[in-house]
């Protein structure tokens, strides 16, 4: 099995003022190349913690994290991250924000013209070419998130990690960005791990939905395979039997199996 990411018996605990807090315990997960996986669970269960571990922004306190068979020792450009709060640098315009990433990844091999072309291409992909010269505070929240996605995709990462990429957006913007993301993923065949709170989003976008139990000491509760053909169309899916089934399964997990502990 050609898993690009392997999470083996991973545990993560934090030292807090009140003593040791075990956030994750015994997490096992394998992510295949080209797969889209969502992490879903109640707030505070440890989704971001797991994503940050894969990103290498934090290191696990026990267990092993592998990427391409090598231990994850820190962050790297082959694992691009789309941050929940976009994290664009406010003093760089949209083009420069993307260019900074492109330059870092391809700067040693390619000339300036090629780097600029890559940047423009990435902006084009999220339909943001018109705002290339604008500063982040001059564009809307949805647009910032698109630039964040463009920045991540422009790096041509092996894995794209997204922490609630559309969490802060209204439903309409969210839907259109999801559609955009479907298009981009289709085009690039990227491996994606994404954290979400949104059941529909999870089913619509993923091949597998990883459902996490409530913390502390959270782990993976169930994994659901979404066997819907791609590309997916949200309108057609609304009445699709399998879509409804998947949705129901996640809702059941979240609101029956995991609800009592959360209370």
């Amino acid at each position: 099995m050609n898993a690009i990411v392997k999470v083996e018996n991973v545990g993560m605990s934090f030292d807090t003022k009140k003593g040791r807090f075990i956030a994750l315990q015994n997490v096992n997960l394998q992510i295949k190349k080209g797969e889209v996986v969502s992490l879903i669970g109640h707030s505070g269960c440890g989704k971001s913690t797991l994503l940050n571990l894969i990103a290498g922004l934090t290191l696990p306190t026990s267990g092993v994290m592998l990427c391409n068979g090598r231990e994850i020792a820190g962050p790297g450009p082959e694992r691009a991250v789309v941050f929940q709060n976009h994290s664009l640098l406010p003093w760089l315009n949209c083009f420069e924000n993307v260019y900074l990433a492109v330059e870092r990844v391809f700067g040693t091999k390619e000339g300036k013209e090629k780097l600029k072309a890559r940047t423009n291409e990435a902006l084009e992909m999220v339909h943001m070419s018109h705002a290339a010269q604008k500063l982040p505070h001059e564009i809307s929240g949805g647009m910032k998130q698109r630039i964040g996605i463009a920045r991540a995709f422009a790096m041509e990462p092996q894995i794209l990690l997204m922490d609630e990429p559309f969490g802060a957006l209204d439903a309409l913007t969210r839907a259109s960005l999801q559609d955009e993301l479907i298009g981009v993923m289709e085009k690039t065949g990227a491996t994606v791990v994404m954290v979400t709170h949104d059941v529909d989003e999870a089913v619509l976008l993923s091949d597998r939905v990883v459902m996490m139990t409530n913390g502390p000491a959270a782990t993976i509760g169930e994994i659901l395979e979404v066997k819907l053909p791609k590309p997916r169309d949200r309108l057609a899916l609304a009445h699709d039997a399998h879509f409804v089934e998947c949705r129901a399964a996640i809702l059941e997990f979240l609101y029956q199996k995991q609800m009592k502990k959360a209370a």
Partner: protein
Amino acid sequence: MTTASLTSGLVAVRPEAESAPVVRGEVTKTEDSKMGATTHTDKAAAAPAKADDSVSFDTHLGNFVRKVIPPLLGFALVIGVWALVAMKSADFPGPGKTWDAAVVLFSDPFYSNGPNDQGIGWNILSSLKRVAIGFGVAALVGIPLGFIIGRFAFMNSMLEPIISILRPVSPLAWLPIGLMVFKAADPASTWTIFICSIWPMILNTAQGVQRVPQDYLNVARVLNLSEFKIITKILFPSVLPYMLTGIRLSIGTAWLVIVAAEMLTGGVGIGFWVWDEWNNLKVEHIIIAIFVIGIVGLLLEQLLLLIARRFSYGAN
């Protein structure tokens, strides 16, 4: 990250809170605690101006009246009280006499009859020159030092106690040391400016470095940026507003201190001029000097606010 202890109790001014109370560095021993100074003026003035476009002439007029009348009343009140006091006292010149003296003084600000008798323009310029030099050197030393303290916990722990002890000392206490080392009055007063300017620069820069949002540092880590890129693209731009706050605080203090330093050292300069006019018993000149010092200080501060606004990156 590291130097919370260093910056928390000391000069800790967030650049985005332009109108929040600003903690000044101290000038004399009596002022060594926090001196609240607010700069509401710029915001209050800017807010109505923005809304003006679509409103009627009446509101225009109303805004104008509301903006202009109260300050005018304030000035009128001060001048009135001043005139009353002057009437009761023989030595104290009234507004009229002072105005006449000012007209004479400013009709030829750049005359020069030897080192002890120069026009007020020269005096202001030579004070400004000292401030510029002391301040410039302080920036050259203080800002890199602030970066180092902010970035390395070790340096922070090493320098924190020293800075904490030296910072509350009035810069004038350093004047004799300056006189001893430089054996001349002029560099000695520049030296006091250096001393008083350097603390806010170090502390604000250090604080800026520590406050670089973790998100930006995470971006740097994910992109695996080189140390050079981290400094130029992330650290420097996000510290810049803090640095400018440090600079603004410094220049305010420096302008306060130069007057006192020049009074002690003599030479050419606005502070010396005040002392000289006191010896000549020209009280109206002292009053003029007070206004001039105030206005120059205000202009310096406004200039730096202007620069700071240029680098505030919109909402952030």
